[in-house]
């Protein structure tokens, strides 16, 4: 009998606590499959964030370290500097990465740390009960933006890839929604590239996975996926932002020079 579908051995054989319809599970699977395919599972060390995916340290069967809220890129830096032969990745939500951990993220990127960041953007704080995230969209209702996010009051959502795009030190940068089989296949390829970038010692790599949080958004799973495709991708356009290291250039729009 042909086996068509299996649990990647890089994932522990235990049930996860994620809500039905949550895309954290898909993201875990993509990372686990990549560790296997690239044959780096045995030297992989993952850094778990604070957020819904904190228990990723139980689900990934490689060595794992749990970090303080937002500090995963700094922890990864220390680990990778001590063991350059380890394959180090962080797995972070939007509050962890783009709010409390923004400084650690941008500076790890600017230092060109050879680490892989898997960024789950679900536009909300899942774990603490659906509060506003730095990536919450304008008009989006959350438990701390009950009237809908309004720029004059709550400010604008942060586009992480667009922000990091011009940071020298970044070698791979992509954003993919985890919504359809085709998109998941694209995400798999991007996750793989983000790990390959590290293996080739090219610099900092980040994949932003546009994810659903049916519980936090108060939507059934299918509607939540549609919302990612139809609403989130409007503000967060998917695609590859960087595929090689090099100087993205600076200066005002229209005059940007880019040197290798």
């Amino acid at each position, binding site marked *: 009998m042909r086996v068509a579908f299996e649990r990647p051995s890089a994932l522990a054989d235990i049930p996860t606590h994620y809500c039905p319809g949550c895309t954290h599970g898909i993201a875990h699977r993509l990372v686990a499959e990549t560790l296997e395919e690239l044959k780096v599972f*045995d030297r992989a*060390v993952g850094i778990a964030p604070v957020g819904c995916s904190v228990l990723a340290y139980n689900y990934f069967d490689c*060595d*794992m*370290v749990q970090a303080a809220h937002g500090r995963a890129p*700094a922890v990864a830096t*220390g*680990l990778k500097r001590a063991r350059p032969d380890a394959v180090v990745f962080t797995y972070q939500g939007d509050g962890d990465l783009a709010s409390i951990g923004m400084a*650690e993220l941008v500076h790890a990127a600017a230092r060109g740390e050879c680490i892989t960041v898997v960024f789950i953007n679900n536009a909300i704080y899942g774990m603490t009960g659906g509060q506003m995230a730095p990536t919450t969209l304008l008009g989006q209702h959350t438990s701390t933006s009950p009237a809908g996010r309004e720029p004059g009051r709550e400010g604008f959502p942060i586009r992480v890839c667009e922000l990091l795009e011009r940071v020298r030190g970044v070698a791979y940068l992509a954003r993919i929604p985890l919504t359809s089989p085709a998109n998941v296949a694209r995400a798999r390829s991007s996750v793989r590239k983000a790990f390959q970038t590290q293996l080739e010692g090219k610099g900092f790599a980040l994949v932003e996975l546009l994810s659903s949080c049916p519980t936090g958004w108060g939507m059934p799973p299918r509607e939540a996926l549609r919302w990612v495709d139809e609403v989130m991708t409007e503000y967060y356009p998917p695609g590859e932002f960087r595929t090689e290291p090099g100087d993205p250039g600076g200066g005002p729009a229209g005059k940007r020079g880019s040197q290798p």
Partner: protein
Amino acid sequence: MDELVLMKGNEAVGEAAIRAGCRFFFGYPITPQNEIPEYMSRRLPEVGGVFVQAESELAAINMVYGCAAAGARAMTSSSSPGISLKQEGISYLCGSELPALIVNMIRGGPGLGTIQPAQSDYFQAVKGGGHGDYRVLVYGPASVQEMVDLTYLAVGRADHYRNPVLVLGDGILGQMMEPVRFPAAVDPAGLPEKPWATNGRRGGPKRLLNSLYLEPEKCEDHNRELQAKYCEMAATEKRWETVATEDAELVVVAYGTTARICRTGLEGLRERGVPVGLFRPISLWPFPDEALDALIEGGKVRSLLAVEMSAGQMVEDVRLAARGRVPVHFYGRAGGMVPQPEEIQEHVRALLEGGAANAGGL
């Protein structure tokens, strides 16, 4: 043992850590300890080590966390405002049981305070500046040589207990130059393996470094284990020095730079036959309470005088050890002001004459 060399306290701390096998430094500049990162940025590459100037103290302590997780001997240093930012990381290091060397060259506070020396971070250091029930070993050296010896010791103790160790200096100790002799260099490659380190499984079992225990029963068990470790530290790690306490009626209690100044002041008084002695805690946590207790039980001591470069912090531990048997007086200077030996002499004299019942310097 090497030759005697003349060295600035801040640089000597860095060299002592390297001698102890530390090859990783993560820090952020702040006066009065900048010579530590500067020295390490120069020196570590010479010995195959790594120096990273972090974007903040928060990042620096978390880099130490990651580096320690990989099994390496790692350190960071800062001064008061920066150490406040490191409290999160110190709590996590304790929770995940990771070793680290942390150096605080204290400056006056609160807030941005001053860049002048102080001892006003004692509470933060010994009572747990971060969240949760945790303890760190805290050493308070009183000379550049002692700072070298205690830093060297701290790196080994940190690994032994899988717990951070804090060396509390101040702006004076960091800036002054004294002759020092360095202990023998430890080769990090020859250190014992750390089976718990997360370096990738490499054929072995999965390792997890974590401080989260969602079930309260498990979190309490974890706390019990931590407390057992802290009890062992409290039982075995107390250090102190006594000077002329055998017949002393008044004993001054002071640590670090202040102890040195007191010693000078007390020597002058002794020459004139005044029965004073000095009790100098070297480990600030655990506080050497039993030794102080024994001194009081000796029956000669009529009162204690705690002297600090703070508004009165260590004095609380002195009072706890004295348990009301003898009066505990306090004299302090704060905000970066350093007491002079003459001030201490005057204060001791007034106390012995029954004058200043509890007149502090503040």
